[in-house]
């Protein structure tokens, strides 16, 4: 019995898994028709992937903007971005665990990224990784720490 086109697509992507992949490979060794299908799938993938090979990003300028924002963040630990992050984290901790939890998690003078790490740990444990990731997205979204003129 021939593998389905869907199975061949998954096989071609190297995502079939060991057992299924081995079964498909054995079949391909003796079936010219399926080898033809696989060649066609590969050719489609190659054509589509060729677009991804074109690089039109000025990586030096973009990277410089990110590194500059990182340096600014490190050099001004009480800057607006860090304060905003702290404030958002406190709010999330209060929302999920109550206001007393903030005092447990945060120490005076603690850098904002350390508070993020500690809050993340609690969120991971109590909410689960997926929900914790969603909370982190909300907390980190739009901190706007990268100067617009430095963007690529």
């Amino acid at each position: 019995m021939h593998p389905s086109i869907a199975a061949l697509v998954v096989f071609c992507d190297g995502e079939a898994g060991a057992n299924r992949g081995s079964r498909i490979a054995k079949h391909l060794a003796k079936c010219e028709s399926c080898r033809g299908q696989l060649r066609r799938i590969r050719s489609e993938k190659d054509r589509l992937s060729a677009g991804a090979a074109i690089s039109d990003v000025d990586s030096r300028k973009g990277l410089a903007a990110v590194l500059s924002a990182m340096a600014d963040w490190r050099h001004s630990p009480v800057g607006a971005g860090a304060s905003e992050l702290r404030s958002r984290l406190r709010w999330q901790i209060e929302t999920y665990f109550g206001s007393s939890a903030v005092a447990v998690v945060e120490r005076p003078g603690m850098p904002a990224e350390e508070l993020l790490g500690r809050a993340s740990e609690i969120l991971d444990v109590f909410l689960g990784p997926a929900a914790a990731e969603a909370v982190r997205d909300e907390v980190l979204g739009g901190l706007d720490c990268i100067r617009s003129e430095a963007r690529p």
Partner: protein
Amino acid sequence: MAALGSKIGAMDLSPCCPPPATGIEREIAELYEREAGGILRYARALAMDQATADDALQEAFFRFFLCRSAGQQIRSPKGWLFRVAHNYVVDQKKAGSRNQTGVESLTDVPCPAHPPESDAYVSDLLQALPQIGLSAREIECVRLRTEGLRYEEIAGVLGLQAGTVGAFLARAHDKLRKAVNGGGHKSRHFGPALVREKRYAS
């Protein structure tokens, strides 16, 4: 709540060894060199807006820096960055802050990811995908796959199961094949891309 407080109090909350500052910078520089082009292309196709795509790229890398500085271990940095960029674009579209178009589509508007002179053949082929009947989800899966993301990473970006990604990609290839063979009723739209393909191959 008191029990929760004591549980939190009992946790060892020191973050798990963030790498040194220079280590993070090196990590980010290497990641940027490797992945920025793909993330930008994907974000641009999704946002259909250069400025939003640029912001998504920068936002993704800056968040990566913050999370790594906080000691977070990121198992698949590439998938993580694409996910953040994807969510950023979707949020921006929902908020309507920058754009003028609907959320739904990667369609209809010429993809700005490649300047017209860069490679018309490839550009046409990617742009033709909606015209041969691929759904927005199928196109997103194809685009992410062409950027080299594994199924699990694509699933993470789009909030799907890995098996569903495989199904979307298989369906996309099925539609592509039908269009190539001229079987699809919308295949006439695919003509120019195919003509260019033959020229490209010869």
